[in-house]
């Protein structure tokens, strides 16, 4: 799994994730997002275009991060999930909870 973070000037940050998000790697994603929270940045777009594989551990990280963001008046949304990531989100029934956008520009614009 690889993660890159682009902190936006409009206080919306884009977390780009690629590779495998599973029980071995999800804690690293959680840590990176928590570092944003620690800086009082709670408006987050997670770009899942490059995700080849995601397990329930990855979903739990996304949901717990969404909860934290919302509890601080922010939000966490998903941008351009890969077919695999999208399938897993839908399989878990989380497409009603996680807002999904076709691209990063549209996702950033909702804040």
């Amino acid at each position, binding site marked *: 799994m690889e993660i890159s973070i682009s902190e936006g000037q409009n206080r919306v940050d884009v977390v780009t994730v690629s590779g495998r998000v*599973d029980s*071995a790697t999800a804690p690293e994603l959680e840590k990176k997002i928590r570092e944003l929270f620690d800086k009082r940045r709670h408006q987050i777009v997670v770009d899942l275009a490059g995700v080849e594989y995601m*397990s*329930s551990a990855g979903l739990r990280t996304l*949901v717990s991060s969404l909860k934290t963001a919302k509890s601080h008046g922010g939000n966490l949304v998903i941008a351009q999930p890969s077919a695999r990531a999208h399938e897993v989100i839908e399989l*878990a*029934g989380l497409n*009603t*909870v996680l807002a999904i956008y076709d691209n990063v520009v549209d996702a950033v614009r909702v804040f």
Partner: protein
Amino acid sequence: MAHVRRLTVRARIEQLSQIVDFVSQAAADTGFNADEIFHIQMAVDEACTNVVEHAYGGSGRGDIGVTCLIDPARGLRIEIRDRGKPFNPNSVPIPNSIQGASDVDQLGAGGLGIYFMRKLMDLVEFHFDDRQGNLLVMEKRRSR
């Protein structure tokens, strides 16, 4: 003709990719397509994550034994054994998200792994006995 492959690894999270690769190869050799292999990977990943985190409590002590029975005509049978705490599948809740929860505050953390296993495989059975420990059997059948 059917044949059997076995792998035993330490029950650590960092070993799971080795199990997933092993099972993925068995699935490919059974003749499953890329989507089906992905589903089998997910089910096995979730199952073995449960073994590491729950059966062995994340201690890293103990082994996971994986047996694949490869039958290109009928499908793939996967047996996962551990000697950790007895697992009771009935103790695992149905995920709230599956029950239509749309409010993030209602979402719990547990249950998704087992839900995925049952959704993605044709057969999922949990067994326990004092001598052998936990045995999880999963099957994916070839569609005709």
